[in-house]
């Protein structure tokens, strides 16, 4: 084993760690801190992405602890892109003090995501989970002046650590039964004979831990408070980056390690295995997430419950199983992550301008900022699954894969449920858009951050929200991603398919 080679193959992670330290030091050292810290963090992320592009096509270190393949490279870059947008978001919206620490935590969480994505070994996966989790707990509770933020941090931490305990317990059972921590080796052991009861317990506990990470019902209870209370960039990153990486790992674990214990979730032919477990999680998430979201008046809370529902849709691909199903899941979760970061970016700007993120704070947004409202429309409609946006194609891909997989339309029940759910979801997304485009702003809502009240009832252009260049560019590029992935999803789909070709 050659440490130089390790350093070469782990260059992205190493670069990020270095950047995190530099940002931390800069934040402490300079008084002009915030701007420089953001710039350095962004530059570090870009360098790490470049380093990923320079990696060899295929490599495996330490029996799967660090795996480099087209799949891991693709999703490492996606995680880095999400982190990049979060850095831009963090620059504008919150925490001018302690910016360095905040960004350092963000970078550490990103390293965790890269480890998660790029590992096929239980120990390493757990370390990745914990690194991400611990950084995110702090990020959620970072706004010390806000009680809600503290609440979000504490809830996220308590639920998260319990879930981690479940995962660790499950993983140790799996290790105990199989005597190995490599995913591939576990898969061979599972395939060799009938699944032992303890192994079943291990599988279920592992799944529970991940169900927490992806906020699937009934393990979603932390999500509404975390999404609502945490500083906006933290919430955006929890909802996007953490979720994408969790789905990648979950997919790899269930397909590679537990693959033979698939079972069946077909309506008349349920067979015990992890697929029915995920199917039940998906069904519960779709129903609970959509129904509860109907009653929300806070946009971030609404997004949280809708995130629960979307976790349900995304699980459909895994329930369907196989490369196709996993591909559909990956496509959906990626588009969802970019959409959600965009939505949170809009929320952050509205919050900055009006001091709140209730639906009524969005009233009349279209007359104040056509750009913000246009982007919000794109994000919301993509979440609702309307063409020609990415969410629509993602749903089509997922549902058609699920229908094909069950054999004789066995998963029809789940697809019907998901379609019903997305029908319900249009209502609450439209409620937000109605506020944006139809309603007039409530008097007094347009308080600036400085406390000055803007006049109401003047000409429509009297109170335009001013966005600086970077915010503008990042919003437009996020909206463009959502639009392009909807209009021309072909190349991304085939990229995912090619990356998955090595999986069983």
């Amino acid at each position, binding site marked *: 084993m050659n440490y130089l080679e390790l350093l070469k193959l782990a260059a992205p992670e190493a670069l990020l760690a270095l950047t995190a330290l530099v940002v931390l030091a800069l934040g402490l050292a300079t008084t002009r801190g915030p701007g420089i810290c953001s710039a350095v963090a962004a530059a570090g992320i870009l360098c790490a992405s470049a380093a990923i592009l320079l990696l060899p096509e295929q490599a495996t270190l330490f029996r799967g602890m660090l795996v480099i393949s087209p799949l891991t490279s693709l999703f490492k870059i996606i995680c880095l892109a999400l982190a990049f947008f979060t850095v831009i978001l963090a620059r504008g919206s919150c925490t001018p003090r302690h910016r360095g620490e905040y960004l350092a935590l963000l970078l550490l969480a990103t390293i965790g995501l890269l480890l998660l994505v790029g590992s096929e070994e239980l120990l390493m996966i757990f370390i990745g989970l914990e690194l991400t989790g611990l950084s995110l707990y702090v990020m959620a509770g970072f706004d010390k002046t806000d009680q809600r933020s503290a609440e979000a941090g504490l809830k996220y931490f308590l639920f998260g650590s319990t879930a981690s305990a479940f995962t660790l317990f499950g993983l140790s059972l799996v290790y105990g039964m199989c005597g190995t921590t490599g995913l591939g080796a576990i898969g061979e052991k599972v395939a060799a004979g009938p699944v032992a009861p303890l192994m079943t317990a291990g599988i279920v506990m592992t799944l529970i831990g991940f169900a927490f990470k992806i906020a699937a019902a009934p393990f979603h209870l932390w999500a509404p408070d975390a999404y609502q209370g945490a500083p906006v960039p933290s919430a955006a990153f929890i909802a996007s980056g953490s979720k994408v990486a969790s789905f990648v790992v979950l997919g790899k674990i269930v397909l590679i390690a537990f693959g033979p214990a698939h079972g069946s979730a077909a309506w008349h032919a349920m067979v015990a295995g992890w697929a029915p477990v995920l199917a039940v999680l998906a069904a519960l998430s779709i129903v609970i997430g959509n129904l509860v979201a109907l009653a929300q008046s806070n946009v971030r809370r609404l997004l949280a419950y809708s995130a629960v529902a979307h976790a349900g849709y995304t699980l459909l691909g895994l329930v369907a199983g196989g490369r196709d199903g996993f591909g559909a899941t990956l496509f959906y979760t990626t588009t969802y992550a970019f959409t959600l970061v965009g939505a949170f970016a809009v929320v952050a700007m509205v919050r900055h301008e009006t001091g709140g993120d209730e639906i009524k704070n969005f009233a009349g947004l279209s007359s104040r900022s056509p750009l913000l409202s246009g982007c919000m429309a794109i994000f919301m409609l993509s979440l609702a699954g309307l063409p020609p946006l990415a969410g629509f194609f993602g749903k089509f891909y997922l549902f058609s894969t699920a229908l094909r997989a069950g054999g004789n339309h066995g998963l029809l029940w789940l697809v019907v449920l998901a379609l019903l759910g997305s029908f319900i979801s*249009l209502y609450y997304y439209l409620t937000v858009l109605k506020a944006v485009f139809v309603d007039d702003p409530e008097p007094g809502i347009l308080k600036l951050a400085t406390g000055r009240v803007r006049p109401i009832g003047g000409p429509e252009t009297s109170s335009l929200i001013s966005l600086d260049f970077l915010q503008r560019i990042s919003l437009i590029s996020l909206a463009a991603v959502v639009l392009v992935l909807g209009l021309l999803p072909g190349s991304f789909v085939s990229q995912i398919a090619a990356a998955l070709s090595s999986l069983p």
Partner: protein
Amino acid sequence: MIAWTIYITFAGAIGLLLMPRFFARWIALATALAGFVVSLLAFFEAHNTGTFATIVRLPWIPTLGLEYHIAADGISLTLALVTGLTAVSAVLFSWDVEHRPNEFFFWLLLVIGGSYGVFLSADLFLLFVFYELVIVPKYFLIAIWGSTNKEYGAMKLTLYSFLGGALVFLGIAATYATAGSLDLQQLALYKFSLPFQTWAFPVMFLGFAILAGIWPLHTWAPTGHVAAPTAGSMLLAGIVMKLGAYAALRVAMNLFPDGFQIWSKWIALLGVIGIVYAAAVALRQRDLKFVIGYSSVSHMGFVLLGLATANALGVGGAVLQMFSHGVIAALLFAVAGRMIYRRTHTRDLDALSDMRLARALPFAAFTFVIASAASMGIPGFSGFAAEITILLGAWKAYPTAVLITGAGMVLVAAFTLRALKKTFFSDKYRGVRLPQGRVQVDDDWDEQSELCVPITAAEKCGALLLIFATLAAGLYPKLLLDRILPAVEAMRFLK
């Protein structure tokens, strides 16, 4: 060439967002006119209208085998033509939109472009993309520029459409999972198993038929039409309801002929109930737009009945009725929404009957008389040509249905004449000013009566265009039927 209708319309929509508001209506008019001219030229140039001939075919999502595939036959061309026609007059009838005009025409053009797209798509996925693309613009058109309970109407209409969309989505995903392709030309040759057709056909047909206003899922139509701004009602009743009927024919019936066989009598039943029920309800409405809204449901019942006959005459008549109703509904809503409501700010029939509008607005009265005559099915207008063809077709398949429908047509005549008399030709004239307290008057009404505002040139152009179309189709239906019938005869369910 016909594919350019789609590109022109979407280009115009995007152009609108970048232009200052002064140009908005001119850009919209130019776009709609260009689309209309293209569809007209394509309609008259077409020779072999029996085949669903490919016009553009490009790979779109090669991994999944989805294509950007545009094709047209006689049915598509006819419906593209009525889309262009209605689009031009809808823009003319919204000439006075001052509130956020760019956005208004943007959404309007999205509806129009999406409709062209649905009529011309030869790939089921593409068709569905266009089909769903129409949903959201409708919401904003109604919720922002509408009147009378607009937010309720907008949400109701959108959710009904999306419910239909979800059913269709299910059908499409299942079709794709079964056949492995979504190309309509290929699927039209694919043999689906009978059990699959038995459940997939009703799912798909019902999903589309919700948009066509099938009873008992029709209630979105009157509510939505009433709440919509004039151009919105014209497009909704004129084109959007046709999207559902067209797609039901092109997709559900043509792909699943055996399923259609099993379910066709139920479709006929629902169609007949729709004709009679909606006509009876229309007879009792106080709001002029509700009368017209229910008349749309009643007329769309004819389309469903025609489709259910499963013979060339009935189905061809249904397509002719789609054209005819597109024109007539647009004309009726134009009179009710733009010519009357914008001037009187009430649509209450009793209130209108106090105004004797025939004297104040003679052109409106003239237009409404023609539209009513066409709607009642007086010979010489397109409504007669279409309905008689449908009934001839239905006579072969469901003789009883024809008898019941005959009774329904009496009701249609009754409510149309009632509305006509109350609106324009009432004998109890009590002056133009409204008796306050009795009449529901909308918020934007001011004391200054606008009745003296004469009918503008834009309104006249729009109305004359539609009147010409209904007369042309009524006096010489062969022009349309020559193109429709070969296409219908090529459909699979006839064999």
